[in-house]
């Protein structure tokens, strides 16, 4: 006591009783820190918890609603419906038809998107002439073109492919153009001063620099391709995942409908993972 009185000032200004010094700042939980980073294991557990919550919620809701007719199937009912679809062979035929449509349609859309998008992102003249056109056309909902395509192209495969292409190509073009535009100007300029011609710069600088970004664009817009596939199959088809859902609805086979929705989800997850893997394999330099 007398000591503090002699040295005086620091303790004199401090309010409150003597004792442990108050800590400065506020401790933040790693779970709730903005832009915080989580340990790998915590991340995994949180992911598992999220999926488990969904499944448990689904199962509980299904049991609560259970009655004479099925409105919401349980997980077990859904899985056995899926098994039945697989056993009868319908699933494989529908899956093949839908995958083929999306595969061909989206490949065409991507090819167009890369060629036109890279041109727009690299050439001011291409951008100036094409931007207003695509800027307007992309606001026309592609699904609104369905009747027109049916009129022009009949009801076989071609209107479905056309719908998938038209429904995704403008997003692909404009997003690829953004990616190509983000190639740093010094990189392009340095290439010229190293003796590269314009074609070399396009092929050996702009394209490789844009590649990981292009794969991301492909991954994001793939969802739109499936959306257009459903629109196409709902209107006119005799095979396909969405066609099968409409069919199941007609017979009030809700368990089948859920099984097919599950298939859509699984395809999405698989293609997402595959494209991510392709990106990190083909552009290891762009890994985070």
């Amino acid at each position: 006591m007398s000591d503090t009185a002699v040295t005086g000032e620091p303790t004199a200004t401090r309010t409150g009783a003597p004792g442990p010094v108050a800590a400065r700042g506020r401790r933040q939980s790693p779970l709730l820190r903005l832009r915080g980073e989580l340990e790998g294991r915590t991340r995994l557990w949180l992911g598992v918890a999220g999926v488990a919550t969904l499944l448990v919620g689904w199962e509980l809701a299904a049991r609560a609603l259970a009655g004479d007719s099925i409105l919401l199937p349980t997980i077990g009912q859904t899985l056995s419906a899926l098994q039945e679809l697989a056993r009868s062979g319908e699933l494989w035929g529908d899956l093949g038809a839908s995958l083929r449509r999306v595969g061909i349609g989206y490949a065409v859309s991507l090819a167009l998107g890369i060629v036109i998008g890279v041109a727009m992102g690299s050439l001011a003249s291409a951008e100036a002439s094409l931007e207003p056109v695509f800027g307007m056309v992309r606001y026309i909902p592609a699904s609104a073109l369905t009747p027109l395509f049916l009129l022009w192209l009949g009801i076989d495969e071609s209107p479905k492919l056309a719908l998938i292409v038209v429904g995704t190509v403008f997003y692909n073009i404009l997003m690829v153009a953004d990616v190509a535009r983000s190639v740093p100007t010094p990189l392009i300029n340095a290439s010229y001063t190293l003796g590269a011609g314009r074609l070399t710069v396009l092929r050996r600088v702009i394209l490789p620099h844009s590649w990981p970004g292009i794969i991301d664009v492909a991954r994001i817009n793939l969802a739109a391709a499936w959306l257009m596939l459903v629109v196409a199959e709902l209107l006119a088809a005799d095979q396909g995942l969405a066609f099968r859902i409409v069919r199941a609805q007609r017979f009030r086979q809700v368990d089948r409908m859920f099984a097919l929705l599950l298939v859509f989800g699984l395809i999405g997850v698989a293609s997402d993972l595959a494209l991510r893997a392709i990106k990190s394999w083909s552009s290891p330099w762009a890994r985070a």
Partner: protein
Amino acid sequence: MGPGLSAPGPAVPKLRCVGVTKQFPGRRRQPGTVALDGIDLEVADNELVCIVGASGCGKSTLLNIVGGLEDATAGTVEVDGAPVIGPGPDRGMVFQAYSLYPWKTVAENIRFGLECAGVPRALRTERVQELLGIVGLTEFADTLPRDLSGGMRQRVAIARALAPEPDMLLLDEPFGALDAQTKQVLQDFLLTVWQRTGATILMVTHDVDEAVYLSSRVYVFSSRPGRVAEEIEVPFGAQRGPLVRRDPRFLDLRDEIQDHLRTNVR
């Protein structure tokens, strides 16, 4: 007085800029910005010249014009008496940042210019090895740029620019993003490269110490529009090194240039 200006005969300067003017177009009938106004400038063969000026004085624009990456609104740029109409491997450039190919290793970055020039494979490998040695990055030949420090990246950029054996090196604030210590190391490195290769170097910087330390002449630019406010001879000759920084003449020159910059900045 530039070297050999009055002498007749073989005294064509390596680089000659006459009345170089750059005006950027204005918007909606507004007059455009004049970035450069009648720049006259010469660099002799094997000379190292710096341009200093505050930001916005158009010094980078001038370098881009000499590099052929931008067109002048008026005036001429000649290298060895031939007009510059576009970029080419005879004028290597190094920028402040973001100019290495991030997907290529150090060796592949350096090799790019040789591939463009169609140099045979065996010769390419040999030349890349030689350049890796010059810039002291032999062990990092297979490293990606993202795993290098800022100073190492700029050494790669310089090696890559040297690969096609350019007549001139144009450096646009190459050390501007580096910390003070790394910067000094790279300045000495640049002097070594200059002496070993005999390249003609034109460098833009806003660092007055750097300009006086490196160059035989300094062009001081004024801002908006960019003009040559002063041309200053640096008297140290080829004798450079840490001692120069303590030479009283170094300090005087530095103060003189800094005064010029202050009076010319508005």
